[in-house]
């Protein structure tokens, strides 16, 4: 610090500093220039991409889900447009205020709000989130009138799934539900994540689940320019979505309705199959539920009601519950005797009311026995003793070996999710089923009750119906299927789900005839005669009773047994006997004897199918007379078509059974060895 300086010195010093400042300025501006060069030349491509990413958004265009119709074209699942109240996250300013305001305009349930908040958190900024669906016209008017002061709120038309048949065939059709995290993972595994962008729902049960890939369609893409707040400014390009493919079923919804009505309040299952094709005509599981409840997210209350009901309406009894077949097994056993040469049709035994095995008496149903019983009579009167002996002669290996080709104890491969395997008992099965060595051993006594369809036997109604169909189809076993055609939404091409013979069991015509003749006589003079009295067609059948509860040798008296422990009632049938167009299996849970509950249901179903008649009353003047006429012609056509029907496509989805949730009750009786088998009519 100089204390005295001349102005000249001072000026010189100042000018030096000015030069320094000027250099500093130029260096700094040069630094900026270098930075600009870096950003605008060296990294230009990167930033240009970023800018394009900013402004271009790909919006999914959700395809219309395919519809499902029955073999007559009656709609089982469709889409309908509904107004939904939605909020665009990027545009709403005060979310809570807006929601409160909306709640004052239209009723919004707490569960709507919960669902909205969940979706809102997951949403992308420019995808609008539904608050409430199914607005009435009046509600739409109220919201629209106030919309000017509610930024981000919009009323949009969306497609919702609708099941116009309600509870009818709900287990077959299934339902869709909101895609959850598990679904997202599964979609990822299938590599379909991109195709599901924008899709909120997917099939969760029934055909909706198993044909998900067909029904969903291909998501379109709309390329839009968006501004910073996510609002689309203009469309750049548009790839339309392709609607999902439609399904035409083999199922006849009117037949299904007749069957379901015939069950009334009773629980059970019915499977009706077209023997020549394996097409499923009716697939009943009672009680049913309304799939419409699931479409928009089921309420806790409804869910609890369905889930906690002792009747288990969600359970698909026809394909997932397994029951011992009872005496419906006897025709198969008889055929086994003939085919293996252990019996001839003429050969007779003396039934004295029981079969003695190792000092233990296996009781017949009739005290004192049926006297002299040959094969024919053994089926007509359902003689246990005949089959105790036959089972003993065949041995468990012999029985299992003969029955396996009929599909007992194996999944039929029906095009529905969640099929159970069932149990075809054999020493081998027992070894893998149990852990303790003493349990693993097969006791010869166990073979005896297996012979009358009790014991460890556990089959689904579908397995039994399909085996029945094979029996009347000269041993040709099909993979049963519910879908007849997949209709391509773009080309309109109808791809047939071809009947696929799983195998042809070599059977001798004479043997078959002996068994089937006896089954016809069951309904003429045997255990099914009351149910089929006056039937204008010939029909073969067999009653059965599956034990739920072992009485340990005491006689079974129905009224003494609690309703839930009563025997299950079975009936298998086919008609017309000379050229079967329908084969079916009916099971009524806790229905008692087969002739009591199951056979009358079978009668109503066959009457309707062959004669187009409703229970008892001649039907033509029904309220839906016109439909009946259609149905009539449809049947004729269907049968003819059926002959030429081809097999399931390899792509047909086969899902494994969902959870290891135990079937409601069915398996109960099967696990305990029940040496003293009771009656089986």
């Amino acid at each position, binding site marked *: 610090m100089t204390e005295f300086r001349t102005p000249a010195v*001072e000026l010189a010093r*100042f000018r030096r500093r000015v030069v320094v400042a000027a250099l500093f300025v130029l260096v700094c501006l040069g630094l900026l220039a270098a930075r*600009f060069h870096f950003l*605008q030349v060296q990294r230009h491509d990167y930033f240009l991409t970023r800018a394009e990413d900013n*402004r271009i958004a790909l919006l999914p265009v959700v395809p219309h889900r395919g519809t499902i119709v029955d073999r007559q074209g009656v709609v089982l699942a469709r889409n309908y447009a509904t107004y939904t109240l939605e909020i665009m996250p990027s545009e709403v300013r005060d979310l809570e205020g807006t929601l409160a305001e909306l709640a004052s305009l239209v009723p919004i349930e707490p569960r709507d709000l919960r669902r909205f908040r969940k979706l809102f958190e997951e949403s992308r900024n420019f995808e609008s989130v539904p608050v409430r669906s199914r607005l009435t016209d009046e509600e739409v008017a109220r919201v629209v009138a106030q919309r000017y002061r509610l930024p981000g709120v919009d009323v949009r038309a969306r497609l919702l799934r609708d099941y116009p048949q309600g509870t009818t065939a709900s287990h077959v059709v299934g339902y869709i539900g909101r895609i959850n995290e598990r679904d997202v993972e599964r979609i990822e595994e299938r590599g379909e994540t991109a195709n599901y962008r924008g899709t909120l729902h997917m099939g969760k049960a029934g055909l909706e689940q198993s044909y998900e890939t067909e029904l969903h369609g291909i998501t379109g893409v709309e390329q839009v320019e968006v501004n910073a707040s996510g609002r689309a400014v203009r469309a750049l390009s548009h790839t339309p979505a392709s609607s999902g493919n439609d399904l035409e079923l083999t199922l006849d919804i009117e037949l299904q309705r007749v069957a379901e009505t015939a069950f009334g309040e009773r629980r059970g299952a019915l499977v009706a199959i077209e023997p020549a094709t394996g097409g499923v005509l009716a697939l009943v599981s009672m009680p049913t539920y309304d799939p419409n409840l699931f479409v928009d997210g089921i309420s806790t209350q409804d869910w609890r009601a369905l889930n906690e009901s002792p009747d288990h309406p969600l359970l698909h009894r026809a394909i997932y519950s397994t029951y011992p077949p009872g005496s419906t097994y006897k025709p198969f056993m008889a055929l086994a005797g003939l085919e293996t040469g252990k019996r001839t049709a003429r050969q007779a035994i003396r039934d004295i009311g029981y079969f003695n095995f190792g000092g233990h008496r296996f009781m017949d149903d009739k005290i004192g026995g049926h006297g002299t019983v040959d094969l024919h009579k053994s089926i007509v009167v359902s003689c246990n003793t005949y089959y105790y002996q036959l089972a003993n002669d065949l041995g468990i290996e012999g029985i299992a070996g003969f029955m396996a080709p009929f599909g007992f104890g194996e999944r039929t491969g029906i095009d529905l999710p969640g099929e159970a395997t069932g149990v075809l008992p054999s020493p081998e099965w027992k070894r893998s089923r149990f852990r303790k060595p003493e349990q693993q051993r097969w006791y010869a006594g166990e073979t005896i009750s297996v012979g009358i369809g009790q014991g460890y036997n556990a089959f689904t109604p579908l397995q039994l119906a399909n085996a029945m169909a094979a029996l009347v189809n000269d041993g040709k076993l099909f993979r049963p299927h519910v879908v007849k055609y997949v209709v391509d939404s773009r080309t309109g091409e109808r791809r047939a789900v071809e009947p696929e013979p799983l195998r042809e069991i070599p059977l001798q015509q004479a043997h078959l005839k002996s068994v089937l003749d006896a089954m016809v006589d069951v309904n003429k003079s045997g255990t099914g005669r009351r149910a089929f009295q006056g039937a204008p067609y010939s029909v073969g059948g067999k009653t059965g009773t599956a034990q739920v509860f072992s009485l340990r040798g005491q006689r079974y008296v129905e009224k003494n047994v609690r309703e839930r422990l009563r025997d299950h009632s079975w009936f298998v049938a086919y008609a017309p006997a000379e050229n079967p167009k329908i084969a079916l299996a009916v099971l009524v849970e806790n229905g008692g004897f087969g002739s009591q509950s199951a056979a009358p249901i079978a009668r109503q179903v066959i009457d309707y199918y062959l004669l187009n008649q409703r229970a008892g009353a001649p039907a033509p003047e029904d309220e839906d007379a016109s439909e009946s006429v259609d149905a009539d012609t449809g049947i004729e056509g269907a049968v003819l078509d059926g002959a030429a029907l081809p097999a399931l496509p390899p792509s047909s989805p086969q899902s494994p059974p969902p959870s290891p949730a135990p079937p409601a009750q069915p398996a109960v009786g099967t696990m305990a060895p029940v040496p003293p088998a009771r009656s089986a009519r």
Partner: protein
Amino acid sequence: MNETRFNPLALARAFLRPIDPILLLLLGVLLASAHVLMQSASPERVDSQLTHFAVALAGMWLLAWLKPQRLLSLAVPLYVLGVLLLVAVDLFGEVSKGAQRWLDLGVARIQPSELMKIAMPLMLAWFFQQRENQTRFLDFVVAGLLLVVPIGLILIQPDLGTSLLVAASGLYVIFFAGLSWKLIIPVVVAGVIGLGSIVAFGDTLCQPEVDWQVLREYQKQRVCTLLDPTRDPLGKGFHIIQSTIAIGSGGLMGKGWMDGTQTHLAFLPERHTDFIFAVLAEEFGLVGAIALLCVYALLLLRGLHIAANAPTHASRLLAGAITMIFFTYAFVNMGMVSGILPVVGVPLPFISYGGTALVTLCLGIGILMSIQRSRFADKT
């Protein structure tokens, strides 16, 4: 000058006499670019921008007429007034956007810190004028005190950007007044080391639980966001990310006027004020950006030239400081928008929208013109 005869040409010449043509030309280029950019960035503000131009040019013209001595004689009252207003702001000011910056006088809301940007260099220039040829170390201490008081008052508002600019304006005067390099160099070195270590240890320093003591939370956030804009891409980092995207995507030649997607689809925030440079860089590319740098460089060199040739010690200091303030505005703004400096609220000089800042800057140009003119009249 003949006062009896009406001569329009002479009148015009008289009117324009204090105007420095070079400065006016450069200013004209800048204001014209501002006008062009505003039509793209925010067309609805174009009209009021023109009003700002008129007011600012009038202010410039008035100051250009005023002799530097007259202006310097106002230094002490302006400074005192400024400090008093700052105290008033801290006591009674309006809170806006988390800071107390405005004073409502009933007629108009004023921002006294803006006044300080002129009053501070004026005051220090006046002060060093008094100590001309006998400047001692103690004088620098006094100057430092004069500087610290208003800066402290602005800092507690809090307004980091303005206090930095006011501090810079004062420090430039002190620098030009001849503060020893022995003092300057250590401070600069310490500053560089400090900044360097912040950059190096940014990750640890930016942990939420670290309290920075001297800086407020929002200032810490700004620094941290600069160090790593991606830490808050939708919040505080959004500005920097979007502006660098705008600049980088402009490329060499730009996307064309009115065709900047970042600008027109509103991805660029504050595009008519602090981030208007990104609009330029996006639509006119590197060419436009370098052109702007050149105009600034010419303006600054002209200002320094005027300072170097100014007749009095005070006017030299004043001209030098004002020029360097222009530089500081420009550098900090462009540095911030291009992501090499933290986001401090500094406008791009002469181009960003905003009447107060433009008037202040044009008053500075007016002072430069006045000093340029005075070198003939008052040579000492």
